[in-house]
């Protein structure tokens, strides 16, 4: 279960070194989250419909925030244009479910695939720009996607379209069904994020973020690594859009292509802790709770979000998770490396 890598030096009476990735903390953290997922899967049987419905929103925000964190926190690609793929995903569900009559699960997978395929050519435009101009560039690209989508009267043009495919299901069943899909999608995205950060891609990605020149001289293929993560984030945003479509049964271009999605993702990641896997989860809980409490206040609520976000960037740069784990290094996921020395007799010593 615990992967370890023995390093031996030939012919020398040196002790044996082992590299561990799991710690007691991450074993507890990961299994705790596993239990939480099982409990959440049973939630539709335990709470009323409005809570279940609100939780769909939570999972949509969570998977958007986790993937935005991969882009910006791990990859240094600050995108303000993920709403392009949210819109593409939402429209993909409507087209594949209503026009072609495909199964709803299949349409969600197709939403991810279509978003990923479109992200490929888009990335060539976006990657011409770096840093701050990359941010506005992705925004422009999202606007271009929106302006093209509203050209087609077949999918409602500028006024939007309703999803007919799931409207004949009873409301309770439809919402519970959407909830499980959303939960499943969030878990899959989380697992992929953990795997990415653990893998060579994650290592290469952070190397590129920290110093492009050093990374490329060390043999990292900069654009290829960036592009893979960009496409993964697009696919996840496509799934988020698909979830919006099946939970609200309505797709309006001004709302699915709204830059406000980017604002929400950014807020969640900044408040939770940018560049950590735990941060977006904590940030999503905080944001979701604030939304349930304050969303009725409209502009005032958004002003508050803006102020809180700025205060975190200026004074709590690591976010909530960074503040919590500042003293003692905490990790809920097995992504770090632990180096320890064990002597020939097998007794272990601290490094």
């Amino acid at each position: 279960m615990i992967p370890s890598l023995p390093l031996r030096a030939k012919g020398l009476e040196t002790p044996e070194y082992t590299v561990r990735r799991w710690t007691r903390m991450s074993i507890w953290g990961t299994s705790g989250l596993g239990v939480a997922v099982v409990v959440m899967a049973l939630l539709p049987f335990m709470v009323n419909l409005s809570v279940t419905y609100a939780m769909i929103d939570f999972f949509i925000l969570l998977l958007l925030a986790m993937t935005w964190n991969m882009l910006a926190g791990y990859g240094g690609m600050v995108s303000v244009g993920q709403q392009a793929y949210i819109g593409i995903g939402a429209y993909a569900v409507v087209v594949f479910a209503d026009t072609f009559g495909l199964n709803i699960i299949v349409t969600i997978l197709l939403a991810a695939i279509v978003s990923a395929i479109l992200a490929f050519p888009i990335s060539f435009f976006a990657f011409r720009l770096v840093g701050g101009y990359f941010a506005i560039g992705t925004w422009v690209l999202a606007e271009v996607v929106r302006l093209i989508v509203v050209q087609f009267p077949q999918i409602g043009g500028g006024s939007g379209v309703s999803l007919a495919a799931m409207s004949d299901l009873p409301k309770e069943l439809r919402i519970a069904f959407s909830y499980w899909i959303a939960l499943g999608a969030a878990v899959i995205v989380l697992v992929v994020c953990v795997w990415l950060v653990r893998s060579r891609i994650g290592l290469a990605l952070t190397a590129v973020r920290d110093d492009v020149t050093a990374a490329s001289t060390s043999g990292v293929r900069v654009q290829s690594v960036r592009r893979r993560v960009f496409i993964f984030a697009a696919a996840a945003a496509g799934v988020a859009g698909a979830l919006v479509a099946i939970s609200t049964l309505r797709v309006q271009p001004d709302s699915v292509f709204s830059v406000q999605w980017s604002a929400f993702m950014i807020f969640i990641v900044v408040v939770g802790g940018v560049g950590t896997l735990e941060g977006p989860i904590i940030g999503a809980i905080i944001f979701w709770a604030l939304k349930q409490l304050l969303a009725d206040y409209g502009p005032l609520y958004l002003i508050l979000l803006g102020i809180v976000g700025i205060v975190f960037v200026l004074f709590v740069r690591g976010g909530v998770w960074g503040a919590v784990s500042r003293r003692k290094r905490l990790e809920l996921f097995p992504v770090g490396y632990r180096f320890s020395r064990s002597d020939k007799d097998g007794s272990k010593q601290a490094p």
Partner: protein
Amino acid sequence: MNLLEPIVQGILLGGLYALFAAGLSLMFGVMRIVNLAYGDFAVLAAYGSLVVINVAAVNPLVALVVVAPLMAVLGYVLQRTVLQRTLGASPLPSLLVTFGLSIIIQNALLLFGSADQQRLSLGAIDTASVELPFGVRVGVFPLGVFVLAVILLGILSWITARTQYGRLVRAVSDDPDTVTLQGANPKIIYGVATAIAFGLVAIAGVAAGIQTSFSPSSGSMLLIFAFEAVIIGGLGSLWGTLGGAVILGVAQTVGAAFAPAQQILAGHIVFLLFLAFLPNGLSRRKVRA
């Protein structure tokens, strides 16, 4: 179809975009900050003039004399208190803070004003037009804005090329640490650059408010146009920015001549073509980000 008229109007529209782009370009050139709230500050200035007009019953140009210095002061204070803290190797903090400011400004304007479209008026000048050679009629006001843009860009490029402050700006843009060793304070240079950029954005915001209408949410579009002009023109070149703004303006008006609803999309497409085939823009200069 007579394309001469849309082309001339596009060139003049480019003057307005150049006014926007100059400040964005200046802040990026000096501090490597991309101000995502830039368009919203323009809208804020337009609303500010609206308030001055309603209180003092003056015309928008007089209001601008009050608003532009106020915006410059706001820019200086904002740079010294907030933006200065976000400077560093990573562009992330400054992007996040300016995006937060953008949301705050938009929603504050919604809260204190309304979502309606507003417009500033100069009276008869709004609709006055003059006839140029070849029978092209253009508005007096857009023509005035274009001339103003050329004059202001000229002054700005004279400042950066010839004055002591301009030398400091170029030095600090290359290497702030060495400038500090020589006894200058980069923070003040940054503050003044932001003040100039905010003064420019106030002028641009009021000009846009007279030429077209504005609402609390129109800042994003202004930011995007300014950005497109900067990229088409090429980073780090003021005259390139003017060229980029003119190309964007012409793309939009010519696009609108063919399909009236596709004005903005036409501009975006020309921008994407430049990004794909001429990523360093008209000036062809490579600039580190």
